[in-house]
Each structure stands twice: as structure tokens, then as C-alpha cells.
């Protein structure tokens, strides 16, 4: 039963990264790739709220099935989580305001500024939070003082690198997706170029994550090299790079391959990471750890949760297919 819950949690996490991540990334692409508001608005408007719900689902699963994980994360990571929340509020509202405010003018400057800022902040702090969960500096010992308890676990070079990596990965996803959203050749080339650059940047930052982890005393490389499936998954993600590069250089109509390719890459990275971590969710200072096993809710709760989620997925998945069919396939 626990396995089912963990799998659904994993799926919602992956889907949030792919869909929600691309939405946040689109804001970052907009900063660097210049004026492309129309394309991004058209691509995001019908789907971003539905994409965003994958995060809510993951949170709900976390607090219903693994209450201690949810409670302790939100206790010690209060500050970065607040930043993520502010980012989520700002992004959603600024995007909607600029989409629905019929007057063009000064107000749009502010909307754009907030939209760009929050599209950057949110993935960055999400990445920091993920980093702090594995780094092992989280402590529940109240005698440690404010800095050691509420700042040190996430305010360090490793979490910073994780934040940068996540942000870059999201903008890579977004630019690959956006290539297929526009019919203007000039814009397509612009997104293509951005996709290539962010791909290289993501690889560099990915390498940096390993190096900085060693520097901070967290032996990520050793754990990684001991896990054959993770090595295979990372190589898979890596091997897709030239394939995507090739399709980015080609003329039109290859958007489906591009999207599937980038989707596989990101999924491979996430699954590889789960594989190393499982069943640990939070590494605690002094070798302690919170795992899926030692934090799980009683069987009665897990059972009800699975029923709700199964019914939910049966309704939601066809809904999602329909939504994307209406807005993503017909439009290209």
C-alpha cells in the first residue's frame, strides 16, 4: 500500500516538474529571450492552473500519508517555503492580471516585472528546499539556536547550486516546449537557441551540484556511483542531448519529438535522484533520517488516500488529455 502512495507521489512530483516547471520556465525565457508575451500567454493561460494542481496534490499526499515529513519540513524550512509561496502568489496573479487587463500601458510594466521576478524566485527556492532535504543539515534540536535550525540547513553553497540547477532546468524545459507554440519562424529560432544554451548551462550546473556536494562534505558522487540504475538513467538523459540538439536545428513539425525527448530527460534525472534517496525523504543532522517507512500514516489513512487518488486519477487523466488535446494539438 505504501508503495502505491509513494508511486503516485512520485508521479505528481514529476508531472509538476514537467508541466508547472515549464510554466515557471516560460517566465524566465521571457526575461532573456525578449518580447514574446503573446506566445507565452497563449500557451500558458488555459493550462497553468491545472498544471499547478499537481503541486497541491503532492502537498496533500505528503501531509495525509507522511504527516511528520510535512510538519517538520514546514517547521524548519519556514523561510524558503514562504519565498516559494510568495513566488506562487505573485506569478499566478501577475500573469492573470496582465492577461485580463485590457488597458495597455504602465500597469503592464509592473505585471511583467512581477511575473519575471516570481518565475525566477519560485524554482530557485524549490531547488534550495530539495537540496536541504538531502544535505543533512536539518536539525530538530531546539537548543541549536535560530541560525542553526532555520537558516543553516538551506543557506549554503550546495542548496544555492541546487536552486540554480532547478531554475536552469525549468527554463530549458520551457524553451523546448515553446518552440512548438509559435508559428513565427523568428521566434522559433530564438527559443531554439535559448534551448541549446540552457541545455549546456543545465549540464554545467548539474556537474557543479556533484562538485559542490563534495566540497560541502556530502558524498553524493560516491552514493551515485554505487547505484547502477541511477548511472543508467543519467546516461540516458545525457544521450538525449544530441538528439534534441539535432531536432532543434531541423525545420518545423518535430515539436512532438522535442517535447517527448525533454520530458524523458527530466523524468530520468528525477527518477535517478529518487532511486539514490529512497526511502529517505529528509536527511537529518547526526545521521538520523526521516523515511517513507518511519513517517507513514496508519493503514486506514493510506487506504482511503489510495481510493481517493485512484478515483481522482481516473477522472483527472482523461480530463488532462482532453485539455491538452483542445489547446495544444489543435493549435499547432
Amino acid at each position, binding site marked *: 500500500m505504501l508503495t502505491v502512495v509513494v508511486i503516485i507521489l512520485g508521479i505528481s512530483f514529476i508531472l509538476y516538474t514537467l508541466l508547472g516547471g515549464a510554466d515557471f520556465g516560460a517566465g524566465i525565457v521571457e526575461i532573456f529571450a525578449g518580447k514574446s508575451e503573446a506566445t507565452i500567454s497563449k500557451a500558458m493561460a488555459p493550462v497553468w492552473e491545472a498544471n*499547478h494542481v499537481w503541486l497541491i496534490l503532492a502537498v496533500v499526499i505528503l501531509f495525509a*500519508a507522511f*504527516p511528520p515529513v510535512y510538519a517538520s519540513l*514546514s517547521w524548519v524550512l519556514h523561510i524558503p517555503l514562504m519565498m516559494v509561496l510568495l513566488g506562487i502568489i505573485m506569478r499566478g496573479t501577475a*500573469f492573470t492580471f496582465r492577461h*485580463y487587463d485590457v488597458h495597455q500601458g504602465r500597469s503592464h510594466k509592473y505585471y511583467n516585472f512581477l511575473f519575471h521576478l516570481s518565475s525566477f524566485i519560485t524554482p530557485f527556492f524549490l531547488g534550495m528546499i530539495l537540496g536541504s532535504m538531502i544535505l543533512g543539515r536539518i536539525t530538530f534540536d531546539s537548543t541549536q539556536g535560530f541560525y542553526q535550525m532555520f537558516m543553516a540547513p538551506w543557506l549554503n553553497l550546495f542548496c544555492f547550486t541546487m536552486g540554480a540547477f532547478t531554475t536552469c532546468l525549468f527554463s530549458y524545459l520551457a524553451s523546448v516546449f515553446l518552440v512548438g507554440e509559435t508559428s513565427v519562424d523568428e521566434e522559433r529560432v530564438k527559443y531554439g537557441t535559448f534551448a541549446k544554451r540552457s541545455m549546456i548551462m543545465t549540464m554545467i550546473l548539474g556537474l557543479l551540484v556533484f562538485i559542490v556536494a563534495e566540497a560541502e562534505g556530502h558524498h553524493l558522487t560516491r552514493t551515485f556511483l554505487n547505484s547502477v540504475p541511477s548511472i543508467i538513467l543519467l546516461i540516458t538523459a545525457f544521450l538525449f542531448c544530441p538528439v534534441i540538439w539535432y531536432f532543434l536545428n531541423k525545420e518545423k513539425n518535430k515539436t512532438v519529438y522535442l517535447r517527448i525527448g525533454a520530458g524523458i530527460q527530466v523524468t530520468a534525472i528525477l527518477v535517478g535522484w529518487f532511486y539514490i534517496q529512497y526511502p529517505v525523504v529528509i536527511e537529518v543532522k547526526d545521521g538520523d533520517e526521516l523515511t517513507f517507512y518511519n513517517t507513514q500514516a496508519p493503514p486506514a*489513512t493510506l487506504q482511503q488516500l489510495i481510493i481517493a487518488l485512484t478515483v481522482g486519477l481516473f477522472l483527472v487523466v482523461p480530463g488532462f488529455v*482532453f485539455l491538452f488535446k483542445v489547446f495544444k494539438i489543435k493549435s499547432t
Partner: protein
Amino acid sequence: MDDLIAARLQMAVSLGFHIVFACIGMTMPVLMAFSEWRWLRTGRQVYLDITKAWSKGAAIFFAVGAVSGTVLSFELGLLWPEFMKQAGAIIGMPFSWEGTAFFIEAIALGVFLYGWNRLNKWVHWLSGVLVSVSGILSGIFVVSANAWMNSPAGFDWVNGKAVNIDPVRAMFNDAWRAQAIHMTLAAFISTSFAVAGVHAWLLLRHRGRLFHQQAVKTALIFGSVAALLQPISGDFSAKDVAKRQPLKLAAMEALYKTSKPAELVIGGLPNDDEQRVNYAIHIPKGLSFLAKGDWNAEVEGLDKASPQDRPPVLVTHISFQLMVMIGFFLAFVALLYLVFSAGWRRVLMKRWWLRIVAFTTPLGFIAVEAGWTLTETGRQPWIIYGIMRTKDAVSSMPGLRYSFLVVTFVYMLLSIIIVWLMRRQINTIDEFYPTAKTS
């Protein structure tokens, strides 16, 4: 500022903000689907225009509701980690169903808002119906979780830990039915009267325009039915509270001493030191009858509990009075509306009537805020009634007041922008919809 107070205020601001958007999210889809259905049946352009104009406004509220709801799902842990550690496994069930319902709502909403030219008309309408149903359901699931805090069920409390958890019993606790009905009706009343009020106000500026007349009519049909049902649901709720949370009822009614029979106190200013209510209207035996259905029944007062177990009286009593007052006023307006539309249709065009409807614009939402304030403060000092105190649930992170200040600032700013943006949208209705200009 004390961190506990800061955390409570932050929760109050976040929920007080979100509840407005949640009410709109539950009601607007129903109004829009109804209006679109009338267009499909009659083919009259005005109904289509109303639906489209509403959907542009509603889209903003939906988006803000979605993100402010997300904030709440995190704040439960950010502010009350000790509560969530125990309650997560117990009330996870309504939240997981809520997640499902909200998911469907978000998908159907995307289809409804952006699928006008891409879908068959009836398929489009169906997506609106789906948004309505899932919106109402997700509201009910969330209320069920709140009802559990008032009426904890489905677990045994052993040495400060919940054991023998039964999530189904927790979800269908004793309070969920009364609360779900009351909240759903409140959502319909507040939103419908606000919509009707705005269009009535526009009618006062542009006399006789069909677009606004039809909009007022559609909104008032739903608002009136709900407003007339609400007093019945309110009575049901009060009797329910009298049974399960006598102290909350005592605070609502400012009943300091257990009395038999107990008098009904209307209005007034409770004075805790003197244990009495000043400037109030007193109706002998009134409370006994309303709470217990018997003119001579005993009603428990605040003196039944030791001082540290009593809820604050002033805030609870005043919020309750405000909610009831507005509730009855809106029920009266609803009654007038039904009478006028049955026999005196000409009255519905009169300026004085439109002024009354315009006046009701904010009232429903004020009542919603008041009602929510009373149910939360009336439960104090408990976060889980009789089980866990609010002060034992709060996060131990120092400096919670800064979170509170940031959240308050952001929500205040957002409120200002939204009001300003809605005014902009309303002022441009004429430009986009030809029927809004014709009489």
C-alpha cells in the same frame, strides 16, 4: 507582538482573503452555466454576452483563489506544525478528495474559459456544469475538515497522540453537514447579491439596459432562494452548536451565566468584567427556544468552564450579531424580490429598488467574514476542540510576526489591485458587448 497572536492573525488574514475567492469560485460557474444555458435555449445574444462578460471577471478571481488556496495548504504546516503532525493522517481524506475535485475544476475551467471557439456549444456548456459541480464539492470537502476541528471524530487520543484512526468517521463528523450546508448557501448569497448589486448600480447609471436587467435577474434568482433558505440552515446550525459546543454558543449569545430559561440577547456590547451585556435588547426565554426548541430549557453559560477554557466573548458575539443581522436583511430583500417579480414587475425598474440592490453588494461577504470569524474564535482556546490547544500547535520558529506582516502586505496590495482591475473591466463592458449598450 506575541508569535501565537501573529500566527493566528496570519491564518485569519489568509483565510479571510481566500474565503471571498472560494465563494466566488463556488457560485460564478453556476451563474455562468445558467446564463449560457439560457442562451443555448433561446439564442438571444444578451445571455451569451452576460456569460462572456462574467467569465472575464471570474477568471481573475479563480486564479487568485487557486494561488491563495495553495498558500493555505502550506500555511497549515508553516504555522501549525504540531497540529498537522497529529491531524494530517486524520483529515487527509477530505483534503485528498478536495484535491481531486479542485483538479477537475481547474481542468474544466481551462476548457470553459478558453474553449469558446474550439468546442461544440453543448460540450462547452457541459464544461461549465463540471466546473460548478466540482467547485461546490471542493468547498464542501474543505469545510468538512474545518468541521472536524469543531467536532473531532474518528480517532482515540492517547497520551497526546492520535491512535485508532478512522478517516471516514473523521470526515463525516457530527458538524460537517450543518457547516457544509451553511457555507454553500453563504457562498451563493454573497456572490449572487454582489453580482446583482454591481449590475443594479450600472443600471442606475445607464437606465433600462437589457444586459444589466437580465444580469440582475439571473443573480437574484439564485441569491434569493439561498437567502431564504439560510435562516433555516442557521437555526439548524445553532441547535447543532448548542449540542456539541455549548461554550461557543454561550460566547455567540454572550450568555455568561447558565440560565433556565435563558433570554435572547440581541446586539449590545459584552462586558467581561461585569459579566453582562450593555445596550442590548433582551427577549425572555428566547435563547432557550432557539437553542433547544423548548421555552423553558436550560442553556449552558460560560460559567460552566474555567476561565482558561472560555472563548473570547466580545469578538464572537459581535461577529455573530453582524452575520445574523445581514442574513435577515438579505432574506427580507429576497422576499421582496420574489413578491415583486410575481406580481409587481414594474417595481423592479424603480430607482429605489435598484438602490437597495446596489446597497447589498458587499453585505453577503461581510456576513461570510463575520460568520467565519465567529466559528473560529468561538472554538478557541482549542485548535482541535477539547483535544489540542491552539498555543500547543503553533510553530516554535521565532519571528512569526514577520511572516504575518509580509502576508498581510501582499494580500492588501492584491485586494487593492483586484478592486481597481474590476472597475476597469466593468467600465469597458460597453466596448466589448453590443447588447450592453442597447435598452
